[in-house]
């Protein structure tokens, strides 16, 4: 094997291991010392070491076990360098015990959920809990997370560092919370899973492997939570919502890779198995008798799927669901979608008025869906000049080339 082939294979193996097990490795490394940042650093160094070692010595049969062993040695080195005397002895003891446990056990225990609950602990600032879970469990970088949360990358980076320090210094536990604490903590965990799914969802074509995996990882985490808490209606609602969206993945692009909006999708391309699973989850959730944000969003998906059987969307139900959702969480993103649904029941003029109420929100000036929605509604009212301008901004803000092409086509279809 030539050296470049060896390099390529090493890189592929490392990438696959990272996708499969990044969070699992961080969770396992951090669980004993609660030092998430050190676990991340050690793991990152282990990956770097792998790219030097594997091309020379061949890829190991269990890349995860190899990475874990190297990462733990790095963590012991960090601890030696940072501390002296008795304090370090305690930490080194913990690390050494873990090393033995890992050597004895071929299967790395999955402590991702425990790590997520540590990140969603009440001692951690509310706004940073979800980004923290995305970073430490899924390995997303701060810039990507910042964009998903409409925040500046520098500010996001600082807040993530502070939160990790707090976990370590304040001794935030890694584990499943007590029953009475669980609902509140679960909410933060679900929010993070949904945000992860949203990030994965932006790559509809599935060309960006890391992103596609993110959606799958989010579904995986969603399933994990429902397995742990089968009686939690919002966890079921979130899983249903994600599965409904996943079911339409294939229909979101045509054979040329062009973006197809929901209203123009061919229901025959939707995955009926996923839809059925999602519907069953929603039924299970509603039987538990406590409505919430994710169940409502799941029900919205369900109202769109209604078209598969009847040929038309139940828009009145959609608007009603958005009304309820807006009361519950008041998010500007929900308000945009509500305005688009209003366009179907009361016309584009009423929808524009609803959208106008959001215009003062500074965060939306750089939010593509706001401008795309505005452009679409303006076009329908015949205000072509304004629509063209709004499309221009939306195109400038979009990062997915297929969606950009779609917006450009809509823009050029405007009558002059």
């Amino acid at each position, binding site marked *: 094997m030539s050296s470049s082939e060896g390099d390529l294979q090493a890189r592929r193996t490392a990438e696959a291991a990272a996708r499969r097990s990044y969070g699992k490795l961080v969770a396992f490394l951090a669980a004993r010392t609660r030092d998430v940042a050190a676990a991340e650093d050690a793991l990152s160094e282990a990956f770097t070491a792998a790219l030097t070692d594997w091309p020379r010595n061949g890829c190991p049969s269990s890349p995860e076990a190899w990475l874990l062993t190297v990462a733990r040695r790095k963590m012991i080195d960090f601890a030696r360098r940072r501390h002296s005397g008795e*304090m370090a002895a305690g930490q080194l003891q913990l690390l050494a015990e873990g090393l033995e446990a890992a050597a004895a056990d071929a299967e790395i225990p999955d402590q991702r959920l425990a790590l997520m609950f540590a990140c969603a602990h009440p001692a951690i600032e509310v706004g940073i809990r979800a980004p923290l879970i995305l970073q430490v469990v899924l390995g997303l970088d701060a810039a990507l997370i910042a964009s998903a949360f409409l925040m500046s990358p520098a500010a996001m980076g600082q807040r993530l560092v502070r939160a990790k320090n707090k976990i370590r210094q304040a*001794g935030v*536990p890694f584990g499943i919370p007590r029953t009475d604490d669980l609902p509140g903590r679960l909410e933060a965990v679900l929010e993070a899973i949904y945000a992860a799914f949203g990030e994965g969802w932006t790559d509809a074509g599935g060309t960006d492997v890391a992103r596609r995996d993110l959606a799958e990882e989010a579904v995986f985490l969603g399933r994990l939570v429902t397995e742990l808490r089968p009686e939690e209606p919002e966890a079921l609602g979130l899983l249903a919502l994600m599965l409904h969206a996943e079911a339409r993945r294939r229909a979101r692009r045509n054979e040329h890779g062009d973006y197809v909006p929901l209203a123009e999708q061919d229901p025959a391309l939707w995955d009926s198995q996923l839809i059925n699973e999602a519907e069953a989850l929603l039924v299970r959730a509603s039987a538990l008798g406590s409505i919430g944000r994710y169940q409502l969003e799941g029900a919205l998906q369900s109202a769109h799927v209604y078209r598969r059987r009847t040929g038309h969307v139940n828009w009145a139900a959609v608007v009603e669901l958005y009304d309820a959702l807006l009361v519950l969480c008041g998010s500007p993103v929900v308000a945009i979608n509500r305005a688009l649904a209003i366009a179907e029941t009361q016309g584009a003029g009423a929808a524009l008025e609803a959208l106008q109420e959001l215009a003062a929100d500074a965060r939306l000036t750089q939010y593509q869906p706001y401008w795309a929605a505005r452009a679409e509604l303006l076009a329908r009212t015949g205000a072509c000049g304004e629509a063209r301008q709004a499309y221009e901004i939306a195109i400038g803000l979009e990062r997915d080339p297929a969606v950009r092409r779609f917006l450009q086509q809509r823009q050029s279809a405007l009558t002059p």
Partner: protein
Amino acid sequence: MQYLLMLYVNEGGWSKLTQAQQEQGVAAYAAYTEAIKKAGVLKGSNRLQGSSTATTVRIANGKSQVLNGPYADSKEQLGGYYLIDVPDLDAALSWAARCPAASHGVVEVRPIWPMAV
């Protein structure tokens, strides 16, 4: 890990209580202290004389300044502490929640930053 539970309470509140209420209050603290001792987590505990007995010192421009009164003049004052040794923050928080001061004041929970030996 060791945590310091700092009890911040409204000092004026005590004198407004009836004698029976005061006895009840003392009994509640005694029971709490007993429980935390029995659990084997107590490392140290004390109450403090009122903040009117406090004196603050600081050196500014090479000169010492001695001021009468507590550092922070707020409605609730540091009135006592418990130093405990427990596995993690959740355990510390559950002891803080049981403390009578959590009901009539505030309990701040701070991890101890150990000194290198």
